[in-house]
């Protein structure tokens, strides 16, 4: 059994990512739509243009992660 180091631990954490993201599909879709709309519109994409949707997605993701750990 190989020793636990930062790479094995971070890789294990990344494996949980897809399940956690699946629990926040609504927020993810909203954020995706916001960014996608800027590609078709006249305004260019700048930093934090969709920050509200992203914050919602991030908080949903973090609460899913907290639930998962327990």
């Amino acid at each position: 059994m190989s020793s636990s180091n930062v790479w094995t631990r971070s890789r294990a954490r990344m494996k949980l990512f897809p399940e956690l993201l699946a629990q926040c599909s609504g927020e993810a879709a909203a954020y995706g739509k916001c960014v996608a709309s800027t590609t078709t519109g006249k305004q260019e994409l700048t930093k934090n243009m969709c920050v509200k949707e992203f914050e919602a997605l991030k908080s949903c993701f973090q609460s899913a992660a907290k639930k998962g750990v327990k």
Partner: protein
Amino acid sequence: MLPFPRARSGPLLRSVRCLSSRQGGAMNVFDRSMKRKQKQWASSLLDSDKYDYLRDEAGSRVADRVYDVSRTFPLALDVGCGKSHVAEHLSKVEPKCEIPGHCVLADEEFLPFKENTFDLVLSSMSLHWINDLPGALRQIYQVLKPDGVFIGAMVGGETLYELRCSLQLAELEREGGFAPHISPYTAVTDLGNLLGRAGFNMLTVDIDEVQVNYPGMLEVMSDLQGMGESNCAWTRKSLLHRDTILAAAAIYKEMYGNEDGSVPATFQILYMIGWKPHESQAKPAKRGSANVSFANLSKISKLQTVHQKTNEKP
């Protein structure tokens, strides 16, 4: 074609390898020692067979093209053979045909073979990590015998454009700028030039698009890592923020996702065939040697029957 947002200033949205500008100086785009380490890590994985699907598919199509050529090749070289995907498929067509092989560990940019050695050179899915592609093609040309053929497959063009765009948009929105995460690919139009400059004749270039569906962006990236295809360009960013990963995964699903929730990843595989010149090869006819006129195009069916009759005469 997906409209790209235009950044006001900064690098090109899509980095394309500029091949026609440099004459002799070698380009140094990729960290080859890093690529070797990545490939060794990928092959040391316990489940490395899981990631062979793309190479297998490309290998089988290259083997098809080899069989399309109506010649036998006593001696062939497979550049960047990996797990010998092409050789496996070549021996499948003729059952119980053992192709004796010998593995040599070498660098694609420094082929350790004498000139005019091989009848056939193959290369499947390994040319996209070569720094000096014109030089490598010239070396392949040199190790070929006259009237030898080079059949290759490489990823190029719009490969992984979904991943590239999602990461770009996510980085723009989250961090205000972006760095290239997908390595630069050769465009189809450049490939013909490259082969011609290396000296090949009778070129054939075609594209195949392979679309693989994955559950999400993370699976795309981990499969690429398992294939040994992680980025090794010198300009790569060593860090991808978790916010950016989250944002990119959401964008990928929203912009490119299929109805069943999976996301596609496109691999554009460019297939190329080039021959080393030889007197026996057909050459373009001399100017003024035509004996049929374009004006007779409307009578072409009559011309064909006349041709058949003359052929049937004993």
